[in-house]
């Protein structure tokens, strides 16, 4: 209670310094937030593309329906498989026409083979799994050929791996820069109160007593800075979404993560700044 009061009074006595702290945290997290927004949208786009990864098994003409149904039931229980669709020759023609757009008139009759379109579960669309499923499906006698765009799946997966690695590396770099800037800002506020800290120590305040108001201060500034950063990121998102192209914003879970990050950075920044200051007096 006393620590909270001291923290509040310190902010009240130096409103500009407090504002500077919050704004610095906000802008540091905003820069990180913009990066995170780009990362989230790249991931979102890759996930959309990934959903199109499927194994297509072309069925011999004249295969009895009950054999196809039995195979479908069999394939549907593969652990990697989300669902299996049977596309008849007519269905294949219709899909081809739809995909070809203005060239749809090149298909005049049902020349295309029927197929089993096998959709894989999310997280299991990597080249190895796709290939393994394709090999198993090939073993059905009525399957003429299996296609799954080997090269395309491999490249997509590589892209995903590169994007994840780059994202992680840049994310850590952005977070480190934010923490350094925020730490320096909090350090300034600790130094501004160096005289008060010295007097506290002289009259018998323990380190934890001295530290507590700074921790509360850092925690609150972290939360306020994170809220401001989320607001700024939302404005940036709206501008891109309405003026340029469709993008997605953070889901509520990520917003909570952002707030927790802000609070943690504020708390840790304060804790380390006060700790290093107290070590010297």
């Amino acid at each position, binding site marked *: 209670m*006393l620590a909270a009061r001291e923290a509040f009074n310190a902010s009240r006595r130096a409103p500009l310094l407090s504002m500077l702290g919050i704004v610095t945290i906000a802008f540091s997290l905003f820069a990180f937030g913009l990066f995170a927004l780009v990362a989230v949208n790249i991931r979102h786009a890759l996930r959309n593309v990934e959903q199109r990864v499927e194994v297509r098994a072309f069925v011999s003409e004249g295969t009895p329906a009950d054999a196809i149904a039995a195979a479908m039931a069999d394939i549907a229980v593969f652990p990697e498989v989300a669902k299996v669709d049977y596309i008849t020759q007519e269905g294949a023609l219709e899909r081809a026409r739809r995909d070809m757009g203005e060239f749809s008139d090149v298909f005049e009759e049902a020349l295309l083979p029927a197929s089993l379109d096998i959709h894989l579960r999310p997280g299991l669309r990597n080249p190895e799994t796709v290939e393994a499923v394709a090999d198993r499906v090939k073993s059905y006698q009525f399957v003429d050929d299996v296609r799954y765009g080997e090269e395309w799946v491999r490249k997509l997966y590589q892209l995903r791996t590169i994007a994840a690695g780059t994202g992680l590396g840049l994310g850590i770099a952005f977070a480190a820069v934010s923490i350094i800037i925020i730490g320096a800002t909090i350090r300034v506020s600790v130094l501004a109160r160096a005289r008060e800290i010295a007097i506290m120590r*002289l*009259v*018998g305040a323990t*380190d934890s007593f001295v530290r507590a108001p700074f921790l509360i201060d850092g925690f609150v500034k972290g939360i306020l800075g994170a809220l401001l950063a989320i607001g700024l990121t939302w404005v940036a998102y709206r501008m891109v979404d309405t003026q340029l192209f469709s993008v997605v914003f953070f889901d509520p879970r990520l917003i909570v993560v952002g707030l927790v990050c802000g609070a943690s950075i504020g708390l840790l920044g304060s804790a380390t700044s006060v700790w290093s200051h107290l070590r010297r007096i």
Partner: protein
Amino acid sequence: MIRLHDVAKEYTRTRVALSHVTLQIRRGEFVFLIGPSGSGKTTILKLLYMEEKPTHGDVWVSGVHANTAKRKEISQLRRRLGIVFQDFRLLEDRTAEENVAFALEVTGAPSSAIPQRVSRVLTQVGLASKATQLPRQLSGGEQQRVAIARALVNDPYFLLADEPTGNLDDRASRGVIQLLRDINAAGTSVIMATHDLEIVRRADNARTVELNHGRIVFDSSETPPPETRYTPLLGQPVIGGPSEGNWPPLPGDGR
């Protein structure tokens, strides 16, 4: 009880603040630490409130061994020591009563008891009517009284005062000294560093410990005074008021 045994304090090899200092101060004593600038008065006080640790020797204050004390022990000890400085060291943005209350708050004193204790101690130093004033609204003497009130509010065993009259005019100085004498009469030991020899001369029944170049050269509590090669300062006439120039030169220091 305060005990320093063969204490040395060296900041660097060439900067020796104290050497071979042995001193014992009992509860209830009023002790003046005198000596020229750089003689080690402030260093002794810093060792007592444990801002510094001795390079050599042992320092004990109320059972706490400075050489080995943990930070928490030092905090606990300082609650039982009142410390007063020449520059007052008040929190400028808090009123007199808030400054005094602050020393109680840090000890975790029950908030219901704080106003009464603050009021009592401000009355004791004669500042009850100025409790709500900020330091900048008070004179130097009054600010020092607030600092003394803050030092007293935890009922300390010892009150350490480092040149408490250094920034005050003669009238304010006399008031502060009288206040310290009253505090001592009530049972609190007072250890005061000063180079104002007039104050020391006017004080009856106070013990005087003289330092020079980091060594104790005279202790009025010892009979006979220790054999030293220096002249005990108070035996010399002081001309022109207290200043460094009035201190007798050391043999061979060329002054």
